[in-house]
C-alpha cells in the first residue's frame, strides 16, 4: 500500500482551478517535497489530502483510504498548516496535551508527551503562557509540535519554517531529519535548498498541475540545469496571463 495516491485530483473554486488533474503516488516513509510558486495549489492539495476540503474531481487515497468517504485515516496523519493553528486561550502545555488526547492518548500519556514536546522545542520557559501571548515564531513552533506529538504515520508540513529565525529554522530541519525514513513527510517550502537537501523526491507544481516530478538529480537532468533554483524557475515559468 502506498502512503498517498491521487488520481486526476482536481479542485476548482468557482472558475479557477486550484488543483488540476493531479496524479501521483508517494511511498511509505518517503520524504516528498511539493514546490511551486505562490498560488500553485500546494496548500489546496494538502487540504484535500487531510480531508479538509472536498475534491471537485478525481480521487485521493491516504494510507489506502478514500479521503472523501472514509475518515479512518485521520488518526494516523497530522498536519502543521500554513497558517499557525493554536488554541489562543490555552497554554502551551494545554494545547499540546489537548491534541494528544484528541488523537486517543490517555491523560497521563498525553501529559508526558506534551512535556517531552515542550522540552524538544525549547518552550519550557513559556510552558504555562497562553498561546496568544507567544511571539509569532514561538506559536509556529508550538503549531509544529502539535503536529508531531501524535506520532503520525503521514505528516504534512505546509511551510513549517515560515516566520522562524535562523537558529530555530536550523533546529527544525534537524528535527525533521530525524523523522526521515520513519514517517511519510509531505512538505512545502519556499526554501529550495532545504527541499533539495532533504527530499527523496520533489514535485514541482505550476498552476495546479504537476510540472515535473522526480529526484533532484532527475529534475536537473531533465532541465539540463545544474543549479536547483534554475531548475525551479524553468519549471514554473509563467505562461501569459489569461
Amino acid at each position, binding site marked *: 500500500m502506498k502512503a498517498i495516491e491521487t488520481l486526476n485530483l482536481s479542485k476548482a473554486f468557482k472558475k479557477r482551478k486550484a488543483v488540476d488533474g493531479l496524479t501521483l503516488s508517494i511511498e511509505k516513509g518517503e520524504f516528498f517535497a511539493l514546490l511551486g510558486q505562490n498560488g500553485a495549489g500546494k496548500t489546496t492539495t494538502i487540504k484535500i489530502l*487531510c480531508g479538509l476540503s472536498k475534491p471537485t474531481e478525481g480521487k485521493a487515497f491516504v494510507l489506502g483510504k478514500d479521503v472523501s468517504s472514509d475518515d479512518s485515516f485521520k488518526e494516523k496523519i497530522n498536519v502543521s*498548516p500554513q497558517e499557525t*493553528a*493554536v488554541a489562543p486561550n490555552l497554554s502551551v502545555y494545554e494545547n499540546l496535551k489537548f491534541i494528544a*488526547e484528541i488523537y486517543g492518548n490517555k491523560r497521563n500519556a498525553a501529559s508526558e508527551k506534551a512535556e517531552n514536546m515542550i522540552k524538544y522545542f525549547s518552550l519550557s520557559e513559556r510552558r504555562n503562557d497562553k498561546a496568544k501571548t507567544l511571539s509569532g515564531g514561538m506559536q509556529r513552533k508550538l*503549531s509544529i509540535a502539535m503536529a508531531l506529538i501524535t506520532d503520525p504515520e503521514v505528516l504534512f508540513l505546509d511551510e513549517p519554517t515560515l516566520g522562524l529565525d535562523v537558529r530555530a529554522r536550523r533546529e527544525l530541519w534537524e528535527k525533521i531529519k530525524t523523522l526521515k525514513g520513519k514517517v511519510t513527510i509531505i512538505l512545502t517550502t519556499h526554501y529550495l535548498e532545504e527541499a533539495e537537501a532533504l527530499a527523496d523526491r520533489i514535485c514541482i507544481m505550476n498552476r495546479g498541475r504537476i510540472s515535473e516530478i522526480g529526484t533532484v538529480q532527475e529534475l536537473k537532468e531533465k532541465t539540463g540545469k545544474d543549479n536547483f533554483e534554475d531548475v525551479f524557475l524553468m519549471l514554473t515559468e509563467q505562461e501569459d496571463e489569461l
Partner: protein
Amino acid sequence: MNISVFSSRNSKEIIRDPLSIAFGIGLPLILQIFVSALQNKIGVDIFKIEYFTSGIAVFSFSFVSLFSGMLISKDRTSSFLNKLFSSPLSAFEYILGYTFPMLFIAIIQSVCCFALSIALGMQFNANIIYAVIVLIPVSLLFIAIGILLGSLFNDKQVGGIFAGFAQVVALSSGMWFDLNLIGGVMKSICYALPFAHAVDLVKGVVIGNYSGLFIHFIWIAVYTVVIYILAVKVFKKNMKN
C-alpha cells in the same frame, strides 16, 4: 473520551472570558430585581414572582445561545478549528463537546435565577427543584440555536442576530404580557414558536399545575431535535469546506 477532552477545552475557553459570563448571568438577575420592585408598586398578575421568574429563567438562556454561537463562529474563523477538522474528532463529538459546557452554564443560570427569587420572597419548595430540572431540556433548545447560528455566521453577525433573537424570545414568550389577552394572530405566532411553550412549561412546574404541560414539552422537544439535526448538518458541511 474525545467529547470530554473537547468539552474541557471549550469550558476553558469560556471561563477565560469571565466578563461575558458575568454579564450573561448578571443581566437577567438585574432585570428580575427591577421587575420585583415594580411589582411591589403596581401588583399585576403577570409579574407575580412565580411567573416572572419562569420567564427570566427562559430568557436568560438566550445568552447561552449567544455564548455558544460566538465560541463556534470564532473557532470556525480561526485556523485552529480548521486544523482540528483533520483530527479524528467527528461532527457528533464537536456538537456534544460544545453542548456540555453550555449546559453547565445554563444550570448555573437557572440556580442563580431561582436563588434570587427566593431571596426576593418566593416560597421555597420542591417545585423549584423540578423547575431547574425541567429547564435543562429547555436550555438544550437554546444551545442548539446557538450552535446553528455559530455554524452559519461569523462572530460579528452572531452578535447582531443575538440582539434580534433576544427580543423575539422576550416578546413571544409571554414574560412581559399575557398572550391570552392579546389573542388572535399574534398569539398563534407566539405559540408557533417554542419560547412561550418553554415559559408556560416552567410556570406550570413552579406552581405545581401539571395539566397541559406535556404538549408544551413536545413542542420544545421537536424544535430542539430539528435544530440539532440542522446544526449537525451545517457543521458537517463546514468540516469539508
